[in-house]
């Protein structure tokens, strides 16, 4: 491996066309990367290259374009595997996104469960890691158990053993929260889950964009993330699972490409990953994701993380100086991402977002698809700023100045 170039925030920002050359020419303070990150130029180039030079279907073609498209698609799978620290690229399944991945898991893994089996989720989860399991519970009589969160917005792992019975087949938790930014203590989760024989799925939608992983070393069984939060195209995501588990799972969707043989007498399914990739997959999107993880895998994450933590600290400090502001989430910077959700007494999140939008600061307001968590904290919604490596001190300055102004004018 060549040593990585030390992280340079300005150079990083230059790789994101919308930020380097913002529409209208005004600097864009994009603090909404937890919803959708900006696209890295390498991903746009890879998609364009594919569309103009190797566009074809990857399902069993023998002509030159089809071979080139298939190669590019397989290469993208290997790039993702590398980013996840996974040796066997066939364990990487392309889906439509995190939500698609979790639904696949809920159907395919879920179909192996029996009535009375249990699945553990938490109050911290995104709706995408709640609703598919609720639907499974309804379909198959599986019981959903819910781990509470602590006052500072972390999984309450002290209470994990009490929520795990021998009937628990899957622990499905967020690797990092899209509201509080809390990063889960995976070692402890895995250890506790293993003690009752439960499998572990982590929702990596927020963590995966923050640097390469070593999933096998984490000791987990399944992982999911979305390309559009990882600087890549929309329309594609990933489910990773350990081979023996995936091979034991029936397919989710039926169609072309996921079969060995179809007849009206019966159908034989293909091996992994194709068994789970029915139909023409998101080819260009997977190729774009491959380029995005290639870019992200080459970043100096020690440097990028320090940069992000510094910006996060500035925001937390700034909020501490605003009357009536309350952060929902950990106070410190330990084991937390640059996802900062807060309320300000007397100010509605949408008014805050709208006001900040006039200063070209993009925030998100509302329940962030985490209504159970909002209920837990007794709020209807929060305002959220989220940090990516391309963010700058100017972004934080604009945010804090805008918040001061909003408080003065609107509160």
């Amino acid at each position: 491996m060549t040593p990585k170039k030390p992280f340079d925030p300005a150079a990083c920002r230059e790789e994101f066309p919308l930020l380097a050359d913002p529409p209208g020419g005004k600097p864009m303070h994009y603090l909404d990367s937890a919803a959708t990150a900006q696209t890295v130029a390498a991903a746009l180039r890879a998609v364009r290259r594919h569309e103009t030079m190797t566009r074809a279907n990857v399902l069993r073609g023998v002509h030159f374009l089809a071979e080139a498209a298939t190669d590019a698609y397989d290469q993208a799978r290997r790039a993702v595997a590398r980013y996840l620290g996974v040796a066997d690229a066939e364990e990487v399944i392309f889906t439509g996104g995190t939500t698609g991945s979790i639904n696949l898991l809920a159907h395919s893994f879920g179909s192996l469960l029996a009535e009375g089996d249990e699945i553990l989720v938490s109050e911290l989860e995104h709706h995408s890691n709640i609703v598919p399991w609720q639907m499974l519970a309804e379909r198959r009589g599986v019981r959903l158990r819910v781990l509470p969160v602590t006052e500072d917005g972390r999984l309450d792992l002290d209470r994990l053993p009490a929520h795990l019975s021998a009937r628990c087949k899957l622990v499905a938790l967020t690797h990092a929260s899209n509201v509080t930014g809390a990063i889960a203590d995976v070692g402890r989760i895995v250890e506790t889950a293993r003690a009752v024989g439960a499998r572990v799925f982590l929702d990596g939608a927020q963590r995966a964009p923050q640097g390469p992983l070593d999933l096998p070393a984490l000791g987990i069984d399944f992982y999911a993330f979305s390309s559009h939060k990882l600087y890549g195209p929309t329309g594609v995501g990933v489910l990773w699972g350990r081979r023996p588990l995936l091979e034991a799972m029936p397919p989710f969707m039926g169609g072309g490409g996921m079969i060995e043989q179809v007849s009206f007498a019966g159908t034989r399914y293909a091996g992994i990953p194709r068994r789970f990739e029915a139909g023409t997959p998101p080819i260009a999107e997977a190729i774009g994701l491959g380029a995005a993880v290639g870019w992200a895998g080459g970043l100096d994450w020690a440097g990028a993380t320090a940069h992000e933590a510094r910006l996060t600290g500035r925001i937390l400090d700034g909020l501490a100086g605003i009357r009536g502001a309350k952060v929902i989430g950990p106070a410190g910077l330990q084991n937390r991402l640059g996802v900062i959700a807060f309320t300000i007494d007397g100010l509605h999140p949408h008014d805050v977002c709208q006001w900040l939008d006039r200063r070209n600061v993009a925030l998100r307001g509302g329940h962030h698809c985490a209504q159970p968590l909002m209920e837990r904290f007794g709020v209807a919604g929060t305002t959220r700023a989220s940090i990516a490596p391309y963010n700058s001190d100017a972004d934080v300055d604009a945010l804090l100045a805008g918040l001061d102004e909003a408080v003065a004018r609107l509160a």
Partner: protein
Amino acid sequence: MSDELYHRKLVARARGAVGKGKLDAPDGRATIDNPLCGDRVTMEVKLADGRLAAVAHQTRGCLLCEAAAALIGAEAAGERLSDIDAAVAAAKSVVEGAPAPAGCWSALEEFGPVRTAKSRRDCVLLPFRALAEAIAAARGTTG
């Protein structure tokens, strides 16, 4: 009217919260949620002789929503029901870019700038929808 969404008049109107409260024995009541932001408006009405005799609201919402509820609190009582219908329709037109009507609902112009903030139009309309539903409930219809 300026193109500024949060102009002084609107903020003041929201903070004023005219009409906030409850009615004794209302003829109709309706509560509407906006699931996008968790906002909630409850409107209570009394009717008499084809007019809105009294109205009160409880509103938990953004400034746009609270200002709209306060405008209703300020202007709606005593109006003919047909005029209320017209006001509800006018509110819808104004947030989409039409000029405000003349008369006591001319203050709807305060909401004109929301035409450029599409995702916020529903915030303004929530109280008007709640009002229409409360009146419908009072009339014993579901319209």
